[in-house]
């Protein structure tokens, strides 16, 4: 019970932080010393609550809140799944709380009101925490809307810019359509279970077609919020325009809340998972992962690139979930548990490294006022700490050992590798193809982050602002360092983390990974040592030992110092910053290989002064294929409906009368 109270206290603190923020436009010091620390404290409390619960290994707490409608009180419930997601929300909130005071300093004298920013941040965080805690569809939807609406105001915080307003509107629209789908999904469940409480839904059996309808609605609704292809369009628009610590919260945490919703809906409430749903999820996940990383490669706006990577990583999470559903539907509960663990592990990993990267991008933005990578360069020497932490983030997201991204991808691969145990031959051949797509995605992500790091942090400064960049203050470094450390820890101690996560499949699927630590905590053996094993600690130790060995050999003979000189570059004239490979040039080979997937508009022209100008626009093909027709048809429908608008008062009264008559006829 203590854990649930702690979590609720966290929600209250977040709301309090929102309340105090209202005064911060007059007393700007409040933001730094009260609003943000309260938010951090709230994060700490929910993280502790979540951790407590995960450690308890199977406890469930419920309570009824004195709010809501007279016949429909708000219920909250804290089980393993919510505990895990509370932990995730809390950890990122703590990091953001370290980071935000320094980052917001320049906003204090800007045009945007601190009250708006602080207030909606508090509401946003409280909304996310409540979604995870909700135990009935009513509270869930209220909290969901609180989260969506407050984040809309955060996206449009810098609304002087027309692009931001447009992005915000797109976000709001898609968020509402998604919410509608979720509401309808809950409607199907509530109709079967005769009640809006999750308990009623859980105990009710939804049969046949209705189950598939409910699943499809939930998949569409939660997928829209999570940013799966093809309903991802809002994500790369909305995430980059928010202030960076908000981007970190949105990309790192809010998308995960959508993942939470999906797991809660399909694994817990709906139950009776069919393997064909899993195939759909797997397919959508694979396509999202691949297309997300390909579009990310084409970007040179750092934050936009990171936003597209969120599409990729959400895709990877859904690959894991899809595999889990396929196996669960086919009756392999142990493998289903493995898939779920892989997906959840990637969920927390993505929360950590994506927040870290967004905070890093924010630090660069804060210090050099650049979002475009083509104007950065050489930042590592000017901002060594940020550079180091960003490198950790890059290695983690590129899924390289011994950092955390690798562990979850390894687990996903291991799940996919068990495809041989399926009866269905077509599934046996499709799942490896999905795994190949995952491999391609991972390698492309590595390429992308070589580009990101190489272009922005290495080499020479490409602009005056980048040359003047300075290291950010202690708080901002602490926020990033905290996340970077966690990335390393989760990469090196996978068994500890899996031991915590393992309680979730035990509660949802009644199966856990019993053999994960059969050979001691040093070895991760999800299905027993004969099948596969990975010892992150030994790999790290081996890497360090080999490094030390190489250094030791070199310390013997030879010259130990290095001499600084000009770059050789095959003997060409001295290097200048414009001779470096640009981000666009770096991704050119891949753009060419995968050319047909992009809407590329490239031209080389002479401008007025006779100089050659190269212009390149890489667009999203889905805009033309999916969104443009929808927009056109909506406009068309609007035009038809517009004919009703005659402008005569008596016509409108006539419509009212007609509606009234029809309605009376209907209810009679």
């Amino acid at each position, binding site marked *: 019970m203590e854990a649930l109270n702690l979590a609720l206290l966290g929600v209250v603190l977040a709301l309090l932080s929102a309340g105090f923020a209202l005064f911060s436009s007059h007393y700007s010091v409040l933001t730094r010393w009260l609003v943000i620390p309260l938010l951090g404290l709230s994060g700490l409390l929910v993280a502790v609550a979540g951790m407590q619960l995960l450690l308890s290994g199977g406890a469930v707490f419920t309570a009824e809140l004195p709010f809501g409608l007279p016949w429909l009180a708000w219920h909250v419930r804290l089980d393993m799944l919510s505990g895990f997601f509370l932990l995730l929300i809390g950890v990122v909130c703590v990091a953001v709380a370290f980071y935000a005071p320094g980052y917001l300093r320049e906003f204090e004298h800007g045009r945007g009101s601190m009250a708006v920013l602080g207030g909606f941040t508090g509401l946003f965080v409280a909304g996310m925490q409540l979604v995870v805690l909700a135990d009935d569809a009513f509270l869930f939807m209220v909290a969901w809307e609180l989260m969506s609406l407050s984040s809309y105001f955060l996206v449009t915080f810098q609304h002087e810019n027309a692009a931001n307003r447009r992005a915000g509107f797109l976000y709001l629209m898609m968020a509402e359509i998604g919410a509608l789908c979720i509401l309808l999904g809950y409607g199907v469940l509530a109709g079967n279970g005769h009640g809006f409480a999750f308990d009623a839904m859980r105990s009710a059996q939804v049969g046949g077609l209705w189950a598939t309808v409910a699943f499809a609605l939930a998949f569409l609704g939660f997928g829209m919020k999570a940013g799966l292809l093809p309903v991802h369009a809002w994500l790369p628009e909305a995430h980059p325009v928010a202030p960076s610590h908000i981007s970190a919260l949105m990309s790192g945490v809010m998308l995960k809340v959508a993942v939470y919703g999906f797991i809660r809906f399909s694994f817990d409430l709906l139950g009776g998972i069919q393997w064909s749903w899993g195939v759909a999820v797997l397919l959508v996940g694979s396509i999202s992962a691949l297309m997300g990383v390909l579009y990310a490669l084409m970007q040179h706006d750092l934050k936009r690139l990171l936003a597209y990577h969120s599409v990729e990583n959400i895709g990877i999470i859904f690959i894991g979930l899809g595999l889990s559903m396929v196996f669960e539907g086919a009756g392999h509960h142990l493998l289903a548990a493995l898939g779920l663990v892989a997906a959840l592990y990637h969920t927390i990993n993505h929360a950590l490294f994506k927040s870290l990267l967004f905070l890093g991008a924010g630090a660069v933005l804060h210090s050099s006022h650049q979002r475009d990578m083509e104007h950065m360069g*050489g930042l590592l020497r000017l901002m060594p700490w940020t550079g180091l932490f960003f490198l950790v983030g890059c*290695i983690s997201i590129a*899924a*390289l*050992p011994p950092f955390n991204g*690798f562990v979850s991808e*390894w687990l996903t691969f*291991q799940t996919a*590798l068990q495809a*041989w145990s399926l009866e269905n*031959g077509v599934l*046996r*051949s499709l799942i490896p193809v999905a*795994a*190949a797509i995952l*491999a*391609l995605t*991972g*390698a492309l992500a*590595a*390429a992308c*982050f*070589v*580009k990101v*790091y*190489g272009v922005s*942090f*290495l*080499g020479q400064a490409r602009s005056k602002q980048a040359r003047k960049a300075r290291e950010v203050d202690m708080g901002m470094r602490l926020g990033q360092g905290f996340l970077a450390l966690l990335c390393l820890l989760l990469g090196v101690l996978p068994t500890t983390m899996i031991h915590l996560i393992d309680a979730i499949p035990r509660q949802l699927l009644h199966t856990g990974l019993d053999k994960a630590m059969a*050979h001691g905590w040093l*070895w991760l053996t999800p299905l027993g040592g*004969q099948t*596969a*094993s990975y*010892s992150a600690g*030994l*790999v790290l130790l*081996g*890497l360090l030992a*080999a*490094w030390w060995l*190489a250094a030791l050999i*070199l310390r013997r*003979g*030879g*010259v130990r110092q*290095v*001499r*600084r*000189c000009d*770059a*050789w*570059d095959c003997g060409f004239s001295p290097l200048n*910053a414009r*001779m470096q*490979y640009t981000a666009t040039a*770096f991704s*050119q*080979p891949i753009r060419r*290989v995968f050319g047909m997937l992009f809407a590329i508009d490239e031209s080389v022209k002479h401008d007025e002064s006779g100089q050659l100008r190269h212009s390149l626009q890489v667009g999203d093909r889905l805009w033309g294929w999916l969104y443009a027709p929808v927009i056109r048809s909506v406009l068309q429908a609007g035009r038809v409906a517009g004919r009703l608008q005659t402008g005569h008062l008596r016509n409108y009264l006539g419509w009212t009368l007609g509606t009234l008559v029809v309605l009376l006829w209907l209810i009679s």
Partner: protein
Amino acid sequence: MADFLSLSGWLIVLLQGILFLLGAPLLAGWIRFVKARLQNRRGARIIQPLQDLYKLFGKEALVAHTASLVFRAAPYVVFASALVAVSLVPLLATNLPSAMAADMIVLVGLLALGRFFLALAGMDVGSSFGGMGSSREMMVSALAEPAMLMAVFTLAMSAHSTNLSSVVDFNLANGLILRPSFLFALLGLMLVAVAETGRIPVDNPATHLELTMIHEAMILEYSGRHLALMEWAAQLKLMLYGVLIVNLFFPWGIATGDTAGALLMGLLAVTVKLLLLGVVVAVMETVLAKMRLFRVPQYLNLAFLLTLLGLFSHIILETGT
């Protein structure tokens, strides 16, 4: 499952590591030697690469003004990841204690880690060649990765394990079986190996200052011991792929116990197999011409197709319903 605390096991791991470190330059030298003979040249001695390394270790290392710490750390990371990767591979014997630390997917991951830092180092100085090499390397490796993984998958689905030792044991236990899936996986893996180790026809390890170069462009700014480490790591990677190919698909001769006789037998077997593979590589490099960069995707497509067919034929032909 190997005993983690067996001393003799760790001694074998150590011995394997030393053999890899010394053997890798020799294998590269052997390929060069055979290639020279095929082209009617006398060629350098086989131990020339070892001597080159020794000489480079004694030379002063030059670092450009524009280079950052990444540039100086990269050779160590690249070398360390290659060394850890090779210590996981069964060279002389299976069931080593180190084999349990990681499976084939981790092996791929370690190679990717090395490549990541190699590509970063290429970008670090800010020269145009370095960026070009990094960009191309990342494209080639991105396209090679799915094919590599499909080959791993095919092996793993037959042996029901991704542990290298288990796969080798599985093949040893079953004796010679003509498996269409293994045939395709072998061909695909060989194509991938050529691409990943930068050999002809994907990259040419012998040229500089050519617009088509990939690996050499990235390490252009290195000198002295840094260069030596980079070269050594590349040779280790070449030998790693060689050992993977010969020991996974033709494991006969490898030691399953830890007696001196068995180990000696294993050493002899793997030496002969590697020498033969070296001849194959040399012949291929003599016969084939380096291809245009944008033909490489088609080449890797073929590799992926082969491994995919390997998987399909495993499912269709080798597993019953």
